[in-house]
Structure formats: C-alpha cells, structure tokens
C-alpha cells in the first residue's frame, strides 16, 4: 500500500529509504526531502501546544495530485515519512497510524541491536521484511 517509506535521522539525513521500484526513485527521494520542511514546521507548532495534545503521529503532511505524504516523529527526533498512492482511497487514518507504529517498533529493535551504530544506514533484514510487508499488501 505504501509506495515509499523513509526513515530520517535527527540531523535530517536518510537512514533508510525505499520505494516500490516500478517508477522513478529520484522523484520519491525528492518528495521525502521536501516533506522535511513540513515536518519541521509541525514539530515547532507542536512545541507551543499543550502537553496533552502532542502526539507522535503528524498526519497528512501534504497531498499532491498522485500521492499523499504522511509523517511521524519519535521522541528522539527520528522522522518516518510514508508516501501512499492517492488512488487508494480505502486506506484509513487508523491503518496509517498502525503502519507507523510498526515502523517505530522495528526501528526501536534496530536501535537495540548492539552491532548497530546509531547514525549508520539501516541494513537489518528484519526491518527490510517489515517494510516489504507494508509495501506489498492486499489492497
């Protein structure tokens, strides 16, 4: 269902980026890059809100004609960006939230791996298979 999934570090460089390889990958990389501005804007807007209303899930960042981009940020300022196909209208907010939660828990597992140095690109097979399961799902 997701067309592109990206994990971006605190310093705004990609730790992991993968897209369904049927189309031009560079376009997705560019979309993720431009969505970082929106993420930063949302985070700073959240900083002024009350503590109760702050959430990890950022929601729809911006829609384009073909795709919708969703964002999620963790407490360690690691951002997850997901691009989904606009034509897939059956995809609800709850499903996107659960996909981000799965991403978050897989990312936490990668972080707890003692052989992983924080800041390196993510090369875990378990993480890859989890992302694959999110990208090729029965619509």
């Amino acid at each position, binding site marked *: 269902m997701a067309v592109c999934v990206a994990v971006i570090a605190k310093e705004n460089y990609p730790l992991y980026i993968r897209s369904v390889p049927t189309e031009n990958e560079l376009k997705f990389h560019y979309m993720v890059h431009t969505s970082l501005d929106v993420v930063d804007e949302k985070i700073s807007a959240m*900083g002024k809100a009350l503590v109760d209303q702050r959430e990890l899930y950022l929601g729809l960042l911006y829609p384009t004609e073909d795709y919708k981009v969703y964002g999620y940020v963790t*407490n360690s300022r690691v951002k997850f960006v997901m691009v989904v196909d606009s034509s897939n209208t059956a995809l609800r907010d709850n499903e996107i939230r659960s996909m981000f939660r799965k991403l978050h828990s897989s990312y*936490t597992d990668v972080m707890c791996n003692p052989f992983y140095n924080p800041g390196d690109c993510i090369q875990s097979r378990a993480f890859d298979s989890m992302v694959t399961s999110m990208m090729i799902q029965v619509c």
Partner: protein
Amino acid sequence: MIPTPAPGFTESSGTLESRPPLAQHPLPVLLGAEPCVCGRSAGPPPPRSCLPPRALHLPPLCLPTQGQNMSLSVLEGMGFRVGQALGERLSRETLAYREELDILKFLCKDLWMAVFQKQMDSLRTNHQGTYVLQDNSFPLLIRMASGLQYLEEAPKFLAFTCGLLRGTLCTLGVKSLVTASVAALPACKFQVVIQKS
C-alpha cells in the same frame, strides 16, 4: 576469556569453604597480599556474599593507572550505548518532553524503574543546567555497603551507570556530562551537567 567456576563452588552457602586454588584462573598475584580463604591469592577477602571467581580483586590503595582510566571509559561507553537503546525503547508513547526537567523526571522514574526496579530518591537542580540525582540505596552498591572498606573504590562501579544516563539523555536530544560520587555507601549521587551548544 571468562573462566568457568570450579565444580562444587556454591554461592548460596554463607560461609567460605576452603577449596583447592583454581589453577587456570587468570587473577594477578598481588605482592604482599594475604591469601583468601577461598584459596586464591588476592587482595582483601571478599565480603560475606562471596564474589564469583571472575571478579577483580583490586588492592585497597591503587593509584589510577593508564589502563584503569581506559577501562572506566570503556565501561562508560558501553553504558552510553545501552542508554541510547533504552532511551529509544522506553520513551515510545508520547511526545511529552518539552523541558529538560521533564526529561530528568523521566530518567528518575521510568528509566530507573526499568533498570533497577526502584525510583530515584531525589532530584535537585540549580535551574541553570545542573541536576543532582540522589539514590539512597543504589542496587549495585548494596553488596559492598557493610562498612567503609570499599568506599574509595565504589565510584568505579558507577561508570557504567553514568554512561547509561548520558546515553539516554543523548537519545532524547540533550548533550550532557555525568559524574558520580559516593559519600556514604550505599547512597550515591549522579551529577548531570547539561552542555549548551
């Protein structure tokens, strides 16, 4: 290489029974030291709850050597990495850390509960970036708490925990410097100084 305990070695018995020396044990023989009841040539005899054979018996008046400083920083580095992973795992639910004080409260309550099954006893601050966390009965020091014998060496055992605190703070976005001090066993204080960049 971690040596395996000799057969018949029981930690549960309260008394130290004399055993034949562990021949393949790599413990250094310290000159002028009294032989331990266990049969190993070592420094001061271990406390009542006998330490496992791979514990290091340090002489009471050891000067900090190059090797020792390096091992302490290696320990601190290990604690740092563990702290980074724990910081990621324990703070999953809400984006609730607006101020430094919230982050420190998370350390005192959630992190300490997860690692040591108790909370930190007191948190003090000077509101200018320095925090003192006090634990009145730190679990890692309880075993050596009877008497003053190990007071000087106790801070070495806190190196890993200092790294743990520093690593968790780093994951939550706070650069800091953590030091530990022991005034009276088993109470200890961790001083966290936030580095403003």
